[in-house]
């Protein structure tokens, strides 16, 4: 029951925040911070206690709608654990980076915590119906977070994001029903259905048809090219805490569904489609990076870099190899924390001082905000996948996975070259954009007086950056902390592959 506390606490926190008065925004943010810290603590506690060797821990099974074989079935394994952790981390930091929010704070945190609760719910669900319910609960608050507190073109961006998400979930729903009726055991339980997969209940022909429906449905939310266009507009228009969640956590919902549901239940279908997915993943990496290189709006740079990084997750899944898929899960964690810190820096730390996100309007930032600039450089290095940070380990795992994969025969070499080029491009745009932002134009303003320095980072900002970058560094230095739990769980899915 312990893990369920994450969901319950988040929803309870959302209710409390929603019922408070808007003018009590100081108290509200403390409630939100307390709730998200409690969620993180529960996630850490689960991680610390997890020793199931890849199996499912903390199983809760309550019959819910027996008519349709739906049960309230939750638990976590090595794949959900890193994602629970990243959700907790990003939630805490999201509150920290929104510390000054005053306008309609009660509603903001009610939506925010509902979203968090839904995300925890997806990662803990072991019943497809329940998973779908939480998946949709996580989508709706995003609309209101963006439409209410977002930046320019927020209504358009919010609507686009929600329609894309729901188009994806419509596909998912169709796929779920197909799997359910093909299984014929009147159960939506991932555990039961997983056993049936192992006993080859689903014919290869069925899997080849239904797998792409489920995979694409989930992958839309993971930002898969060519369905990624909601992501940059959504990320850019969203308020900081929401774009942190979007990039850090919500895109992972999609990738998690791809891995757990699509590949986990229909492995033979995955085998058929893996080569194509790998190609699309390469396009994701390269296209995202190239578009990021062309942007002038700093937030769009980060938005497209998210698309690019999610390409590695998809590539890792497409390897259908233990190392590659471990890398994919690790990359979800890694991009979760790094994407969040980048959005926080651009959306709040820098924007609140410069009142601009245009790279060509920044003027001498390295002198005027040296501390912030160096923190951003560190975050950029982490995003590039510098050794010592988690991104390095996860991308390395993915590449090794591609190398070892048995299912990318024929164009494995090209995939490797493509991924390698993608990493180079990532280096390229990160360095170029850091240069443009901080070390670029340095001319004094009109009367020749030196430019005034900006105020340094506030305490909540420092704590938030330290938590997120610290997490990336910790996993970069001690990857065994996560790979040790991810590996055995991924192996269970790998073992379902026929042949």
């Amino acid at each position, binding site marked *: 029951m312990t893990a369920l506390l994450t969901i319950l606490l988040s929803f309870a926190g959302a209710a409390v925040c929603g019922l408070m008065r808007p003018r009590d925004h100081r108290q509200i943010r403390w409630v939100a911070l307390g709730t998200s810290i409690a969620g993180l603590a529960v996630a850490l506690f689960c991680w610390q206690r997890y020793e199931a060797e890849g199996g499912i821990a903390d199983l809760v099974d309550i019959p819910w709608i027996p008519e349709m074989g739906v049960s309230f079935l939750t638990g976590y394994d090595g794949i959900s654990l890193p994602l629970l952790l990243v959700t907790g981390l990003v939630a805490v930091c999201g509150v920290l980076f929104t510390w000054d929010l005053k306008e309609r704070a009660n509603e903001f945190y009610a939506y925010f915590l509902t979203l968090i609760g839904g995300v925890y719910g997806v990662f803990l669900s072991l019943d497809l119906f329940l998973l779908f*319910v939480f998946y949709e609960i996580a989508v709706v608050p995003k609309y209101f977070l963006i439409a209410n507190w977002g930046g320019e073109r927020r209504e358009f961006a919010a609507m686009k994001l*929600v329609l894309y998400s*729901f*188009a994806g979930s419509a596909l998912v*729903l169709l796929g779920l029903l197909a799997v359910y009726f093909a299984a014929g055991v009147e159960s939506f339980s991932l555990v039961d259905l997983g056993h049936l997969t192992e006993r080859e209940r689903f014919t290869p022909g069925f899997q080849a048809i239904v797998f792409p429906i489920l995979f694409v449905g989930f992958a839309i939310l993971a930002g898969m090219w060519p369905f990624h266009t909601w992501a940059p507009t959504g990320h850019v228009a969203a308020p900081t805490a929401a774009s942190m969640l979007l990039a850090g956590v919500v895109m992972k919902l999609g990738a998690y569904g791809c891995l757990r549901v699509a590949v986990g239940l229909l492995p033979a279908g995955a085998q058929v489609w893996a080569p194509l997915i790998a190609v699309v993943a390469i396009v994701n990496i390269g296209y995202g990076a190239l578009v990021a290189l062309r942007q002038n709006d700093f937030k769009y740079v980060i938005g497209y870099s998210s698309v690019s990084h999610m390409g590695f997750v998809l590539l890792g899944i497409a390897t259908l190899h233990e190392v590659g898929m471990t890398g994919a899960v690790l990359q979800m964690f890694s991009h979760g924390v790094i994407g969040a810190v980048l959005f926080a820096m651009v959306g709040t730390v820098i924007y609140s001082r410069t009142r601009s996100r245009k790279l060509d309007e920044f003027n001498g930032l390295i002198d005027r905000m040296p501390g912030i600039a160096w923190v951003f450089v560190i975050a950029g290095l982490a995003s590039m996948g510098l050794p010592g940070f988690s991104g390095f380990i996860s991308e390395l795992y993915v590449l090794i996975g591609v190398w070892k994969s048995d299912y990318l025969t024929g164009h494995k070499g090209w995939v490797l070259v493509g991924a390698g080029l993608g990493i180079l491009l990532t280096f390229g745009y990160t360095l170029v954009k850091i240069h443009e932002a901080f070390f670029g134009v340095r001319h004094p303003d009109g009367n020749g007086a030196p430019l005034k320095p900006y105020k340094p980072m506030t305490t909540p900002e420092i704590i938030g950056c330290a938590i997120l970058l610290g997490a990336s560094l910790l996993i970069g230095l001690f990857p065994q902390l996560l790979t040790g739990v991810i590996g055995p769980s991924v192996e269970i899915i790998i073992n379902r592959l026929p042949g």
Partner: protein
Amino acid sequence: MSYELLLYALMPDLFVVVGIFLALGLDYTWLRGRGIEDRNRVVARVATWSLLLGLGAMAQVDFAGINVGEGQLIYTQTSITLKALVFVLAAVVVELCARVNICRHVSEFYALLLLSTLGMGLVITGGNLLSAFVALELTSLSLYAMTALWQHRRASAEAALKYLAFGGVSAAFLLFGLSYLYGATGTLELVRITQYVAAQSELPPLIVLAYVFILIGIGFKIALAPFHFWAPDVYQNAPTPAAAWVASGSKIAAVVLLINLLAPAFGDNPAPRIALGTALAALAVLSMVWGNLAALRQTNLKRLLAYSAVANAGYLLVGLVAFTPVGRASVLFFALVYSLASIGAFGIVSLLADRLDRDAEIDDFRGCWKTMPILSGLFFVFVLSMASIPPLAGFVGKFYLFYAAIGSQPDVAGWSEGWYWLVGLALVMSVVSLYYYLKILKPFLVFEPAGAPLERPANAASATAALAVLAMLIVIMGVYPQPFIDIFRSMG
């Protein structure tokens, strides 16, 4: 059949009949010359109490297995529950009417409301062609009159005339269909008709023709495209509580009648299933596409809800094409859930906008979150339930429909078999519908008011409480739907 039994079985309805006479009588005598507010208050209380006493009678009396006069009154757990729910919904509508002075003819309006409730109850418990038709027409005639009673709006009378004209034609179609059914089978009792059809190896053409007419007739009543043309005008221009009632109670009654009339297709004989299934699927496709696409470009909230009602009638048929007990239960569940959300949404509009002297546009509701967070929150629940967002009941309802449709024929070799294609289309249309549901939520929850926002309605406490009960029901049915499903599964 004894009179004693008849009186016993009609006890809930008798309370309502007494309520009607009491309301009219009090208004004509004791309340004569009083102000309209006084009259409205007293008559509304009479109406509420007659409905509550009727509900009490339903709870007290043991109806098990009552079957009066060749199926003219059949009580089962399902029919009793539905009838009780219709009474509850009627009580909510009374609560909504009680705080606006719709017209000078106070008691007549409530009497019509109670009469239509009576009709709906009798449709639901009817298992006989004649009584069901008469009861349905009792409902419809009352609704036509209620539509016309917003006396200071000309459009109200125009809408009522349109409703009457379309409704009259539909009643003719329905009656024609029923008479063919009678002619072909020689009985008015639905149970016997079902037995007759089950015994035929091939469906007689007369019966096929009968069902074509019946589908057209009932298609009008539940606003299926292409028989929906009356709906937008009526929803927009009827007194808002009456529109809520047209959208909810009358829909439940017509859906139950449709299910009852389709009983032969649920039997072992597959012959009626094939022909009827195709016809229903075609109507479903048309309604979902037409309703959703037309709703996209509406700027009037009530008119938009009318097109959304057309779309929802389409979804409803998706569950019915399967002709399985699961499908029947899913259709009833969905119809009920949709009605709850519908009354809720219209109720909010009535509370906020009925005091304006013009038609409220969607943009008039800008900034409601600021002045009335509770009503905005309730509207949020109702609309999200219509948009089938979990954990609200609308989601479970729609999921159950799709589950039933696909489950009736899960093994498919090609796309032409099974109902995957229909469910797929319904899912696509649900995504489309999300656009306009969010569009109507935006002013309530997102936008800053342009100019002065709508003021908080005065003396709305009891109406708000009634709407809150609806919202709670929606949440409960979404989070814990099994007990409701059990009731609907026990039918037939």
